[in-house]
């Protein structure tokens, strides 16, 4: 049984979250901080807002619980939970990208893979063709924002791109 020591995490906007150590060390970054004995007081996470940190903690908790012997959740159910967690209408695109950044900063490989796969699936499902002389995207309603994202990137770089 893992020790039930509590770790305090402080988000960039000052909110504190208390979590079990087992949950906190899902993040390799936090794990190294604990090992380096930097975790006596609250661990500050200046790159993560409270909204995102709450979601990350929710994810880590679920995955830690799923691997506990008494509460074993089979893989299918966990995958289904992940899919619901990251569903695009639950999580808007800005939040999705913030989750990617948080997972990258906190070094949580499974969350990073999940979020990147979601973006990849959005790109796949979109099938937007690109013509570079003048932009004429055709896109589905659901993925309009992602296309707008790419469109803005293009516009920002157009002078370099079209030289």
């Amino acid at each position, binding site marked *: 049984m893992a020790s039930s020591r509590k770790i305090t995490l402080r988000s960039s906007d000052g909110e504190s979250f208390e979590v079990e150590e087992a949950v906190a060390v899902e993040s390799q970054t936090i794990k190294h901080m604990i090992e380096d004995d930097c975790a006596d007081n609250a661990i500050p996470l200046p790159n993560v807002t409270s909204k995102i940190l709450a979601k990350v903690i929710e994810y880590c908790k679920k995955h830690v619980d799923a691997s506990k012997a008494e509460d074993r959740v089979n893989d299918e159910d966990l995958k289904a939970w992940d899919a619901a967690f990251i569903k695009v209408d639950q999580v808007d*695109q*800005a939040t999705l*990208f913030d989750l*990617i*950044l948080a997972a*990258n900063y906190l070094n949580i490989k499974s969350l*990073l*893979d999940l979020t*990147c*796969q979601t*973006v*990849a699936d959005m*790109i*796949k499902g979109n*099938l*937007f*063709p*690109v*013509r*570079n*002389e*003048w932009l004429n995207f*055709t896109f589905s309603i659901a993925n309009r924002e992602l296309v*707008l*994202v*790419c469109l*803005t*990137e*293009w516009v*920002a*770089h157009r002078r*370099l*791109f*079209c*030289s």
Partner: protein
Amino acid sequence: MADTLFSTLSDDVVLNIFSKLEDDPRHWARLACVCTKFSSLIRNVCWKAKCCATIPSVVADLADATSSASSSSPPGGWSSLHKLAVCCPGLLHAGVLLENSDFGLERELGPNEDFSRSDRPQPDSSSSATAANASSSSSSSINCRENSVPVDSCSWSLYDDLYFDTVYNTSESQEGVQLGDEDVAVERGYVKVGGDTNACKRRKIWRSMRSHLASGVWNLCREQGNKLLASRFRGDCLYLCDWPGCVHIEEKRNYMLFRGVFKNFKRSMVWRTINDGNRSKIDVNCAFCSCKETWDLHSAFCLRRIYGYHDDGEPVVRAYICENGHVSGAWTDLPLYT
């Protein structure tokens, strides 16, 4: 909110996303068209890694050849090599659509001046002849279009029919822009011929003319190259795709389209033969790089002599090579003599 969300991500995260899209080469091709950041990431990292993973022997060989050169990428870039591995050049770039009824003499000797342009024999009902007319008239506009592509050595044509594979919208053919005009030209050529072609069949005909994802295994190996070249070129190293390549069933006969690349083309015997013979170039542009013209290997006597001609003037095998050593061509079945 039009924030550039992708620009907040570091390169390794973006590459993480791209790595989840590597199963279908079209995803990377489209992404490389979105912006310069994506384009440089995909060209320099993704395609290079994919080539090294799928065709390591070819990469090692080509790297040896250019080890003295400053750049370590193969001629035409990693995009060309990757495209060679996965993309069939299509009937257009394999030279199948060129007029062959005179055994290619008009290309060799020049047009017959006795007949005026307006008296040129009308295309017969075969689709390939009509396509030749359509493609020759549109080849110059294709060249213009290639010029307008801003990214240097962009081997993925933005008007690849893969685009049409995903979005086929008849209203677009009405637009009066360069792309629209061209498509209408090619499309009308086929619609005339086809008769009662519906949209699906039009798209199907379309796809086989331009370059597209090849059917079959995506691999390049040297053995096939030895099968193709005449004996005095055995010293040259040519990598070809696995037999039979991408099979196209056409009206008259079946074409097995292949593609390949020479190792160290500029130091090969084939290049010396083409150069010394002062061969003229053909107006078929390379499907894999930005070369506008290619040389015909068959009429340069670089292919094995046993491959002759069919009765109607079509060569049994044809191959076209560009400045960078990219080869596109087509096998047909050898005629059976009773």
